[in-house]
């Protein structure tokens, strides 16, 4: 029994080491190159969410084009600030001149300030640091505007109709992005939290199955829901499935945010009425460019750069600018 156990532990260890080595290969390959290439670091909230994966891929492409080395790291999940801090510290000691980070929370602020004091340029992507000026610059979607656009769209699309009943599906409580989009939608629609037209507000988890459950329960509460705000497109698909199971999918207006290719496909086939498209690839490539610029020329960016939001819909309404799904699919991420 002793030998079997030892052999098992040994083989598990060897296999693990091999797998880890194999996976680590891709990043270490790039370090081979020419004399002192510029190193830029990218730290995302997680590497398990398509949005951040696409961001990473965009950064990798831009870094390759500019002949820079990109180091990547991520937290375990969207609440792992400590993981982001560790990744950032490692990159700085490995010689990164600029760090691009999608901050989880105020938990990364101290580490961001420390990196800057060591002469590293730190740019926040997608969400601001807390406070905003802790980082050198912010390249992000204005999530408030993203929400506002779809709020305005929904208001205009339903103009003149009576009996409006709104449901809103956020993600886990405490998400800053969630709050911005939620409040943006309300502002765009011209109402506030607690408005009698809002019949259900629930946590759809930002994912499809949980949003389906949440919508089913909201429909039980009030089967007349005809306008739905969702925080992202997977959530919207879950809502649609719940409606379809009840045969109600045709009378309900669903709006969303993100503009991933799958999401735009949802607009094209009519499941989602309109979505605010954001540009993670642009955030990433602008970030890499700024990082390389800083390393080579010492040029520091600062302030907020809006990477843009475009409303995508095949059924435009007056008073709100939008582009159709052809544009959406051309510019989508994923």
């Amino acid at each position: 029994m002793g030998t079997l156990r030892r052999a098992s532990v040994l083989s598990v260890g060897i296999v693990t080491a091999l797998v880890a080595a194999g996976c680590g290969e891709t990043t270490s390959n790039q370090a081979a190159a020419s004399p002192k290439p510029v190193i830029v670091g990218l730290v995302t909230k997680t590497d398990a969410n398509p949005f951040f994966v696409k961001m990473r891929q965009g950064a990798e492409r831009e870094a390759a084009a500019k002949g820079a080395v990109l180091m990547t790291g991520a937290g375990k999940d969207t609440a792992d600030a400590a993981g982001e801090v560790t990744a950032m510290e490692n990159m700085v000691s490995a010689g990164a001149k600029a760090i691009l980070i999608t901050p989880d929370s105020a938990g990364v602020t101290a580490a961001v300030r420390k990196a800057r004091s060591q002469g590293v340029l730190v740019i926040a992507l997608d969400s601001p640091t807390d406070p905003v000026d802790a980082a050198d610059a912010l390249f992000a979607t204005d999530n408030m505007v993203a929400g506002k656009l779809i709020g305005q769209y929904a208001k205009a699309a339903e103009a003149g109709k009576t009996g409006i009943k709104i449901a809103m599906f956020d993600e886990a409580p405490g998400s800053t992005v969630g709050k911005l989009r939620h409040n943006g939608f309300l502002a765009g629609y011209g109402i506030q939290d607690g408005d009698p037209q809002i019949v259900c507000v629930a946590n759809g988890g930002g994912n499809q199955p949980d949003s389906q459950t949440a919508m089913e329960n909201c429909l039980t509460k009030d089967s007349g829901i005809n306008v739905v705000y969702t925080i992202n497109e997977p959530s919207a698909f879950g809502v649609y499935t719940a409606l379809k199971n009840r045969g109600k999918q045709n009378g309900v207006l669903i709006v969303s945010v993100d503009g991933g290719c799958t999401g735009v496909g949802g607009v094209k086939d009519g499941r989602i009425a309109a979505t605010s498209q954001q540009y993670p690839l642009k955030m990433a490539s602008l970030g890499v460019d700024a990082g390389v610029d800083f390393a080579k020329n010492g040029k520091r960016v600062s302030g907020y750069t809006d990477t843009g939001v475009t409303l995508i819909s095949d059924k435009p309404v007056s008073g709100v600018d939008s582009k159709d799904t052809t544009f959406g699919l051309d510019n989508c991420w994923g």
Partner: protein
Amino acid sequence: MLARLRQTGLGRDPGAAVARARVISALGPLVALLLASLFFTIRTDRFLTTENWSLITQQVAVVGILAIGQTLIILTAGIDLSVGAVMAYGTIVMTRLAVTYHLNPFLAIALGIGACLAFGVLNGVLVTAVRLPPFIVTLGTLNIAFALTHITSNEETIANLPDPLVFFGDTFRFAGTTITYGAVLAVALTVVTWFVLTRTIGGRHVYATGNNPDAARLAGVRTRRVLLSVYAIAGLLDGIAALVLVGRTGVGDPQAGQSANLDSITAVVVGGTSLFGGRGSVLGTLVGTLIVGIFRNGLTLLGVAAIYQFLITGVLVILAVAVDQLSRRTRG
């Protein structure tokens, strides 16, 4: 003639007294279920309708199946943190094979369930052969399954599934309401597991292994085989849950299953099974699953903010564990 051995304070008929105590502790979750239902019924007239209850059964079917495997493992004083992640991996395997690689749907389903079973066997081997603690082992396989899910799916959801894959989301009408085959499957699997646990030798060995593994081993119970089986069966059930999830949502979604891990453990604990092993019932788990589902449903109907669901779930779990502890102290 020998002197009579002194009885403990169980009165004239200890067998009946013990049976009574067992029934009371098993009834705990059921009482909680009834109280919760009563509360929501009073507060909204939309709760106690056949449609709403049909909905609740559909919503809890997936976690209900995961919780069966979790019950088996917790009965052996172990725990499985990987159930949700393994299930998510199963959904990706079966949907990708069926849609992207155009494999025969039934073969795709079999391979998807097989992949989950493989994870279960891996858990079992690491726990029994390498003797690592279940918490650590399943924490490891959780991460592995999670990573594999995202790597193989390339972060894309897979839609347009062929009919066999979504069968368990299909419904039929019964007694004036619609029921999904998935919900029926969850109940059927629970009943079968209950029968095996209470009436067969293998089932009693699960309890013995959890209650006193040394005693079981010395008595000739093959505890290593028992442990390997429960982890493997849990893996199989993860695969079945994956199929039911796919039927419910109609897609293979790499983001699925993240809350399912803790939900399955909550269902087991609230259902009265002891984390120390050797005590509990899979029927109690079914009640626990319903309780969790009822709260999620009822609180949404009442318009309570989502954050309170976390609060209430936490309170429920602590109450359930406290009741278990107190009833242990009143036993001999």
